[in-house]
Every structure is written in structure tokens, then in C-alpha cells.
């Protein structure tokens, strides 16, 4: 089944063959490229503005005449972007580790063990996919208030520590791990936990990396819940911190664009490097989900 995950490779892009001039394809290519350039224009202007002095920001030139790092030094010294960056990094990292660990634990148990109640657990977990986060934020808020989790890292992280989607995805992927391999490991005297960790997990690394990238990205960009649960500026995540910062400086667009660049560009660069895996991940999660 997991072969389906990589349908991107099943058939090479059409119109193969040697290079020859084809006016139709050339036109299509040009239009597509122009469209793509339009797509990244807002991002390009954001980055460009972050290196401009205020008087130059209304200029359409992408490369500033007098590039400056002043916005960055200003923002890092007068606001808490550094803290917010580290908060986002820590929260996304811890949540991702937890999700990858627990979701594959659940996926493996539901896939490889036969026990009474298996279907019940499976359907119950799957059914939570239909509940929108928006319905849960109020009860989560009440819960956090009662347990003293407001304004804490745990408060921001706890709703996402295990996901139904990831558990389901991992279950699908463990199907591709042959049972004979697990039995062989049993004969060698490994216990079930060791078999899962040392035998099964290494065989599903493409799925694990896709799940990790997605979980990280969704936590990195998460807005609604962090906005609700954290009121202490020291605990803001990057998106929430940026929103609050921008709401204060309002018209100092070069500073807002600098903050927006800090919130998006490092992640963009990392993801650009991982593009192949992300596209693969989108496809396999999309077609499975």
C-alpha cells in the first residue's frame, strides 16, 4: 500500500523526449512562470522591506538602495522577538517529538496487535478528526484555568501532543512492514517495545519525516490557541507576538515586515531544503487522510 504514497514518481512528467521548440508549451511555461513569480511577490516585498529605511519602504525596488540591518537590531533590542522565536522553536520541537513518538506507538499497536477493543479504539480515535478545534478551545481554556496551565508552555502545547491524523497515517504505513520480520525479531528474543523501536520504526522513516515536518509546521504557524492561552508577553509564540507587536507600531511597516520575516523566513529556508520530502508528505497525507 505504501507504494501509493510515492505516486509522484510512478509516471515521469509528460511531454518527454528531446528538446525541441514547441510554441504551445513555451507559452504555457511562460504563463506558469509569471504566475509563480506573482505568488512569491508578497514574500519578496516583505523581505525587501525588512532591509529598508522608512523613507525607502514606499519604493517599488526590491533591492534597497541603502540596505540596512537597523530594523533587525531595533526589533531585537526593543521587543521580545528573540524570546518569541525561541518559544516557538521549543514548543514546535517538543510537540513534534511527542507526536512522532506517540502517534507511531498508536499506529503500530492498532496495526500489528490483535486484541479485543482494537476496532473500538481505532474508530474512537478516528472520530475525533471530525471535531473542530474551535469547539474544543473553550473547554481547553476552562481546563487550563482550573489546572493552572494558563500562561505556561505546557498550556500552549498540551492539545497537540498526540494527533488522530498522525496515528491514522502511521497505522497505514505500518501495514507495509511484513509480519515475518517482526516474528523473526521475536524469535531473537526482542520484546515488543524493542521490536517496534528497532525493527519497525526504521522501516517507516519516510512517513515519520513527513509527519514530523507537518507537525512542526502546524505548530510553528498555530495562532488561535496560543493567542487564547498565553497572555504573558514572555510566553507568546512568534505569530501571537508578531500580531501584538504589529498592533502597537501600526504604521511602521518596515518594522512589521521585519517581524513577519523573522516569523516566516527561517522556516521557509528550512522547508525549501526539505521541499522534496514535504511535497511527498503532502501527497501521502493528502491521499491517505
Amino acid at each position, binding site marked *: 500500500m505504501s507504494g501509493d504514497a510515492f*505516486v509522484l514518481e510512478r509516471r515521469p512528467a509528460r511531454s518527454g523526449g528531446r528538446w525541441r521548440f514547441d510554441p504551445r508549451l513555451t507559452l504555457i511555461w511562460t504563463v506558469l512562470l509569471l504566475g509563480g513569480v506573482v505568488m512569491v511577490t508578497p514574500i519578496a516585498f516583505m523581505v525587501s522591506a525588512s532591509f529598508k529605511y522608512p523613507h525607502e519602504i514606499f519604493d517599488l525596488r526590491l533591492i534597497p538602495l541603502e540596505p540596512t540591518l537597523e530594523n533587525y537590531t531595533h526589533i531585537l533590542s526593543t521587543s521580545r522577538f528573540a524570546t518569541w522565536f525561541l518559544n516557538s522553536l521549543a514548543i514546535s520541537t517538543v510537540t513534534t517529538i511527542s507526536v512522532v513518538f506517540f502517534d507511531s506507538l498508536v499506529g503500530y499497536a492498532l496495526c500489528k496487535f490483535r486484541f479485543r477493543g482494537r476496532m473500538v479504539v481505532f474508530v474512537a480515535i478516528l472520530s475525533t478528526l471530525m471535531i473542530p478545534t474551535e469547539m474544543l478551545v473553550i473547554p481547553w481554556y476552562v481546563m487550563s484555568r482550573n489546572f493552572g496551565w494558563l500562561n505556561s508552555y505546557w498550556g500552549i502545547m498540551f492539545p497537540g501532543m498526540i494527533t488522530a491524523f498522525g496515528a491514522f497515517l502511521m497505522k497505514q504505513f505500518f501495514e507495509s512492514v511484513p509480519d515475518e520480520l517482526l516474528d523473526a525479531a521475536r524469535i531473537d528474543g526482542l520484546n515488543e517495545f524493542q521490536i517496534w523501536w528497532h525493527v519497525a520504526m526504521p522501516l517507516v522513516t519516510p512517513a515519520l519525516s513527513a509527519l514530523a515536518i507537518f507537525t512542526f509546521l502546524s505548530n510553528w504557524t498555530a495562532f488561535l490557541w496560543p493567542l487564547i492561552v498565553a497572555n504573558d508577553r514572555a510566553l507568546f509564540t512568534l505569530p501571537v507576538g508578531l500580531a501584538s507587536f504589529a498592533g502597537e507600531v501600526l504604521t511602521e511597516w518596515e518594522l512589521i515586515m521585519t517581524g513577519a520575516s523573522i516569523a516566516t523566513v527561517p522556516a521557509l529556508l528550512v522547508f525549501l531544503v526539505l521541499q522534496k520530502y514535504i511535497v511527498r508528505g503532502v501527497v501521502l497525507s493528502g491521499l491517505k487522510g
Partner: protein
Amino acid sequence: MTILARPISLGTRQALWAWAFLAVPVVFFVVIRFWPTLHAFYLAFTDWNLVAQPNFIGFANFVRAWNDPVFWVAFANTFLYLALGVPISLLVAFAVAYYLDQVRFLHGFIRALYFLPFLTTAAAMGWVWKWLYQPPPVGIINMILGAVGIAQQPFLRSTSQALPSVLVVAIWAGLGFQIVIFLAGLRAIPETYYEAAKIDGATRWQTLWRITIPLLRPTLIFLVVIGSIGFLRIFDQVFNMTTEGDGGPLNSTKPIVLYIYQSAFRSFQMGYAAAVTVVLFLVMLVITAIQLRLARVK
């Protein structure tokens, strides 16, 4: 083989291991998903305001929503996001994917250009677009319009243009995802079908309608369902692009989730807000069910 006095059967052993694997996650799902779901339903029937004891008030919250014009405005806006956003984004994404699939030169690079916005933070991009939409001499879009001789537009400052302006940002951010899914769907169609069509002398247009689109149905259904849920939940862009995140001007961009957020966390009417979340949940269920039913009938 075994030297245990009472050997545990293989089945029992598996069950024990399974529950050892599942213990923490099951507790998590019960406490963090199922219990809060029930709690939301319970709160929806109370007048809880975060301070006083909650009182059971029956359907009063739902009646109140029914009679609140702002609720209906938010509801209508949400449907507008959905009704415009899903078809437009799918049409554009399909067109891009369909042609990109035929292009080889710099294929990966062009795909990356379209995909990049999907990886950005919606809150940050809300502010970027808000800047681009400003009146001249600040806003770049108005500057470009001016340069080609088109009158300046108010965009976010007008009650009629604000919602489409926000919608463009949401579509822009989601396009890359849809394109990649479409591309995968297109690649999964066996080449032999196209070869057969060619032998039969089918035109490009016929091939598109008779082969490509019918075979893309599962992909299409998936994207419609996912896209609909996404537009029904729109929040980040509106919160960051409107003045003080109020869904203005005059509620013209306010979606249902922002209405919920304001009821719960600005005016602390937790019971009322919970009732509106229940309505949102039911609307999502109904829309998804209708879409899946329609997909099956055709």
C-alpha cells in the same frame, strides 16, 4: 518451551502489549478530546460567564444566536468565504497543475514558487497583505494600479471589498497544497489511457473532460471537503488584517470563528460562545455529509 508455571497465551500477551502501547494515548484522547467535546455541549446549554456558577438555560443560547443580526452576518460571511473560496481556488489550482504537469523545464522550481506561500505563517502574511493593500503612497498594489492608470481602490477599508481582499490571501496561501495534490492525482492516471485516447483521435479538450477529470474524482472530492472545512474555519487572516482584529469594517469580514472568539474571550460569554461552536460543528458535519453524498450519487 516455556518454564512459566502458568504460561500466558499469545493472545493475552499481545493484548497486554497493545494496552501498554496505547495507555497514554487513550488517556490523552479521553481527557483532551472526548471530555472537552462533551463539556462544550454541556456549556452550550448554560449561561456561564467564567465568574458566576453556570445555570442550565435550555436552548436560550441558540435562540439568542438566532435573534442576533451579527451572528447572521458572521454566518453569511463564512458561507461567502466558502462559496467563493472553494470553486475559485480549485479552478486556479487545477489549471496550474494541469499545465504544470505538461511542463518539464524547471518543473520543480516553478512548483516551488507556487508552493512557498503554503509554508508561511498566516498571521504574518495577514500583516504583509494588509500593507500591500494600503492606500497610496504606502500600498504597493494601489501603486501598481496607479501606474497602469486604474483608480485607487479602498480594499480593506471598504465594506464591499474587504471580504474579497481577505479571501484572496486565504486562497493564495492554500493554492500550493491543492496544486501538489492535483499534480499527484494527474501523475497517478496511467499513461495508457492517454495513449488510447490519442489513437482514437481524441482532441485535448475531449481527453481532459473524458479521461482526466473523471479519473481525478477522488482527488477532487478530497480537496472540496478539505477546502470547505478550511474556509469554514477561517480566522488567522481576518484577525490580523482587520483593525484590532474585529472583523471590520462594520463586521463585513467577520467569520463565525472570530464571532466565537469575541464572545468567549472578549466578553467572556462562555456558554453562548460554546453554543455557537456547537452550531459550527453541526454545519461542518452537514456540509461534509452532503458533499460526500453528492460525490457518491454522481
